[in-house]
């Protein structure tokens, strides 16, 4: 029987009541007394010298309170980058400045130039149109390879080139890898593009700055996945506000997919302006603005080579990737194509030698940073595509080729610096073949054929590193932050609990699943637990939600804090029953003296803690509140196998996803329904990337797919019903819950399955010249490929 509460139960998401009935409180729902409105003047060109900004006319327009330009931000720091990557030769990456408002040059369409604050948004917008910007257009830098050519125009004049870094990993293996390729029995090579994606959170970004001159306190309300990180970065590096005078509130947040991790110029600008004007200043991003200002994802151009021996064993992998950074370094941008990508290049396979080369390049485009999966989808895609191609070249079944190379013994240290703690890749693959009904494929193929359609089956595996991350490790790798998590558990006198967590929830259902964990540990109903997050004023320092880390890291902190609570409560219970704490058992919300029928209820103990009349005051303090920080000692490694079946219309090239199956090993599961939902959403995003989404700049650096008229998001009719399974469970060995994280798997595992399936369909139809098509596999691209 499935459980009906606690760990393992599909408890309904309590937050959905407010989300689905319009009772959520998003940043844009907040309106402060005396609030003014902001509109940004943005660059309309991709690259230009900013010769002057004339605000005279705008300043005199109705309702205008003030027009800020870069000159007003003198003394304000630039937006910091949170990760320093060291290049192949031991030199630090080139790190350009990132002013809050453009100075000297504009570097992408959407780059903010001035900030107009007015009584209403429309007045601010009218005045923004009246700001006269004198820009001398410069040739834009768009193509990454051209950007690195001699004599290419430079995005940042003060850097030596457009190369941010040339990273080699593991550099010491470079020669050995090259040698392995020289002597390999077979080498499969694949050139591919992992295209740029626009994150498209349902809720656009919003920032409201507020300043109380009487107390000198600043508050920023913002759409963030990690309010504490914003407080640290903006306070310490940009505005010079100490953390005790700066509060950052991220209330309900309508999705982020990574794009709301980063500290953005608008947040600093409104906080700064609020202090100058002594009025709250609110900015709400339009959808059009989102397209040219939210940090985007992926954008890798890659060559991958796989060396195999005569039996099909992987001998070596060598990759060369050009990774687009865009015009500036967004908060965590440098880490994505390096440490979140290179370290996953072993995949689920025993490959003794791996060398990953990444050249990060500045271009006159929107900055690129983490987007659901962040580096790991890029690694998985190239690896799983090249394996499929290799299987075809050597005439081996792609499933067999994978099995042959699976890692089967754990812990396993990869040649790319990580150690997988547990896993069972054969188990998830077996489960996948079952739930995908691979045995029935031939019959479905025949049926498609009868209708004049091509059909293909794509299967792949994936592994990712989640639960980011051990601070000591990421520190060595260049992170300028720690990556622990925290929780404060406050038990009230009448027994209810408030858990204040540093993890932020922007759609993941933490308020439900976190409560399940604590309820299970104490044996009380879930509704006795409230989860509080998102406000630096009432939660302990947390690093936020990304990298599928909330349950693995934040949940572990919560378990630690709850264990402290239980330990103390046990002492109180022992005192109340005149027994020794070691003899006290906690079960179903009651403390019992082992082997007796003496017991006290949870509520008796919590009441005693706050009404300490009969209480061991000389041994323990009154009250019941504990805080814990948790810093993991390894990443977690969710892994699994995905299968996609597509039909291709041979006349039009249109691909439809007919079936999709996912068998994931996420370790222990707290709420199976929420996990299903996370996988469903991830797969939809992956199908979106594989078939629909394209971020195209024209030769002038204008975004052609800058609205939903041209940027195709996956819709319900673009995806099939999914078969998902997470019954294969190898619990994580190093966190107390044994959980691995499930937020990104769907987006990581699904794109190669779709592309493998399409290539399979075309190959089966005799189009053996088609070994790869770059995403998105739109009808026109597939049709063009079919034309040969």
């Amino acid at each position: 029987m499935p459980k009906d509460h606690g760990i393992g139960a599909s408890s309904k998401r309590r937050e959905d009541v407010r989300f689905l009935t319009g009772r959520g409180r998003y940043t844009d729902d907040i309106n402060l007394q005396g609030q003014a409105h902001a509109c940004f003047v943005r660059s309309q060109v991709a690259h230009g010298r900013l010769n002057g900004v004339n605000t005279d006319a705008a300043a005199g327009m109705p309702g205008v309170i003030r027009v800020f330009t870069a000159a007003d931000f003198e003394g304000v720091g630039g937006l910091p980058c949170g990760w320093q990557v060291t290049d192949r030769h031991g030199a630090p990456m080139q790190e350009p400045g990132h002013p809050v408002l453009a100075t000297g040059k504009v570097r992408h369409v959407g780059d903010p130039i001035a900030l107009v604050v007015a009584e209403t948004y429309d007045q601010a917008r009218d005045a923004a149109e009246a700001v006269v910007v004198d820009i001398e257009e410069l040739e834009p830098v768009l193509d990454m390879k051209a950007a690195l050519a001699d004599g290419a125009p430079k995005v940042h004049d003060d850097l030596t080139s457009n190369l941010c870094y040339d990273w080699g990993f593991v550099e010491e293996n470079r020669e050995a890898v090259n040698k392995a390729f020289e002597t390999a029995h077979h080498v499969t090579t694949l050139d591919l593009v992992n295209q740029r994606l626009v994150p498209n959170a349902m809720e656009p970004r919003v920032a409201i700055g507020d300043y109380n001159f009487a107390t000198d306190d600043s508050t920023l309300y913002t759409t963030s996945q990690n309010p504490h990180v914003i407080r640290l970065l903006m306070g310490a590096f940009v505005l010079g506000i100490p953390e005790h005078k700066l509060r950052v509130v991220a209330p309900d947040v309508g999705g982020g997919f990574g794009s709301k991790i980063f500290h953005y110029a608008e947040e600093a600008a409104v906080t700064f302006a609020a202090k100058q004007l002594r009025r709250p200043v609110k900015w709400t991003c339009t959808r059009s603005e989102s397209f040219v200002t939210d940090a985007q994802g992926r954008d890798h151009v890659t060559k991958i080579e796989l060396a195999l021996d005569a039996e099909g064993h992987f001998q070596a992998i060598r990759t060369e990737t050009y990774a687009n950074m865009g015009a500036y370094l967004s908060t965590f941008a440098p880490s994505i194509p390096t440490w979140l990508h290179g370290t996953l290049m072993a995949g689920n396979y025993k490959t003794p030698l791996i060398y990953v080369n990444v050249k990060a390049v500045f271009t006159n485009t929107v900055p690129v940073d983490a987007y659901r999966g962040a580096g790991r989808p890029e690694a998985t895609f190239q690896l799983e595509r090249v394996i499929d191609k290799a299987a075809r070249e050597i005439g081996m079944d792609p499933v067999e080729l994978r099995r042959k190379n699976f890692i089967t013994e754990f812990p396993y240290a990869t040649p790319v610096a990580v150690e997988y703690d547990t896993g069972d890749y054969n188990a998830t693959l077996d489960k996948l073949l079952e739930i995908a009904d691979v045995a029935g494929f031939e019959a479905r193929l025949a049926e498609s054929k009868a209708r004049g359609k091509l059909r293909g089956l794509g299967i792949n595996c994936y592994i990712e590193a989640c639960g980011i991350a051990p601070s000591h490790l990421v520190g060595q790798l260049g992170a300028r932050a720690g990556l622990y998590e925290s929780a404060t558990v406050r038990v009230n006198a009448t027994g209810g609990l408030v858990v204040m967590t540093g993890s932020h929830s922007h759609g993941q259902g933490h308020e439900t699943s976190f409560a399940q964990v604590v309820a299970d540990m104490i044996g009380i109903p879930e509704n006795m637990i409230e989860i509080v997050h998102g406000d630096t004023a009432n939660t302990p320092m947390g690093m936020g939600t990304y990298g599928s880390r909330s349950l693995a890291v934040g949940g572990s902190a919560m378990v630690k804090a709850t264990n402290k609570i239980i330990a103390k409560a046990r002492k109180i219970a022992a005192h109340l029953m005149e027994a020794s704490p070691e003899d006290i058992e906690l079960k179903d919300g009651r403390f019992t003296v082992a082997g007796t029928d003496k017991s006290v209820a949870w509520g008796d103990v919590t009441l005693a803690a706050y009404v300490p009349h009969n209480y061991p005051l000389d041994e323990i303090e009154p009250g019941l509140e504990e805080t814990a920080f948790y810093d993991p000692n390894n990443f977690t490694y969710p892994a699994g196998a995905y299968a996609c079946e597509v039909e291709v219309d041979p006349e039009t090239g249109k691909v439809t996803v007919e079936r999709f199956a996912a068998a994931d090993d996420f370790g222990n599961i707290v709420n199976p329904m929420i996990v299903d939902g996370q996988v469903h959403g991830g797969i939809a995003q992956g199908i979106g990337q594989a078939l629909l989404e394209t971020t195209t700049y024209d030769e002038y650096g204008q975004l052609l797919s800058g609205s939903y008229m041209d940027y195709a998001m996956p819709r319900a009719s673009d995806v099939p019903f999914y078969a998902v399974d997470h019954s294969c469970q190898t619990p994580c060995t190093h966190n107390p819950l044994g959980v691995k994280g499930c937020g990104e798997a769907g987006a990581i595992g699904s794109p190669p399955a779709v592309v493998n399936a399409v290539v399979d369909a075309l190959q089966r139809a005799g189009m053996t010249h088609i070994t790869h098509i770059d995403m998105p596999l739109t009808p026109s691209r597939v049709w063009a490929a079919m034309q040969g």
Partner: protein
Amino acid sequence: MYAFELVRPATLDEAVTALGTEEAQALGGGQTLIPTLKQRLAAPAKLVCLGGLAELKGVCIDDDGAVCVGGATPHAVVAAEAAAHYPALAALAGNIGDPAVRNRGTIGGSLANNDPSACYPAAALGSGATIRTVNRDIAADDFFQGMFTTALEDGEIITEVRFPVPERAAYQKFEQPASRFALVGVFVAKYADGVRVAVTGASEGGVFRWAEAEAALSADFSAAAIAGLSLEADMMIGDLHGSPEYRAHLVKVLTGRAVTAAG
């Protein structure tokens, strides 16, 4: 949006008068115009709302059996009320945009706008429809004059569109994946005196008739009849959703499918 005056005329005459002033513009369902205003890409001083004019709404059958659609009739109404009389037209209307668009957007707005990817122009041209305005009747063959351009004068209101009902017809729409407008759409209609084939989405010149296909299908109304034909890619639209060659190819595929669907 910039500020504008909103006029809600009670009669067609009032609407015509209101539209006589400078910088006045008709507002149908607003499904094209309102987004344009929100983007500040247009700044009319006055919007004259046609939504309240009962005389411009609804579907009826005239004495010749033609289906007459009021100029301010929403797509959803056409989808429902024309279904029994002109199924291909109703099906086309019922597959425009989403329910919200179909409940607001109107045939007059669609034809007046003449978006090169819109569906209705294909139906009007493919049916040899007559576009009736406050002043005159305009044959569909004369109405569409290139992308976003029509024979309408400034302020001229489409009051009715009259569709002669063919023996058989079908519309095939290949959706652009993002907007779900027609990447290419082909309307094929077989009349006693010949076949009409109207193509939307494909050409730089907007909706057009494919004369070779019409001739071939008039002789033999079967998909096989156009097998030997092909279109030049020259004048076709090329964008991130499809090359001119791809569109030219789709026109032929969809024409064949429309013929088959027409039965």
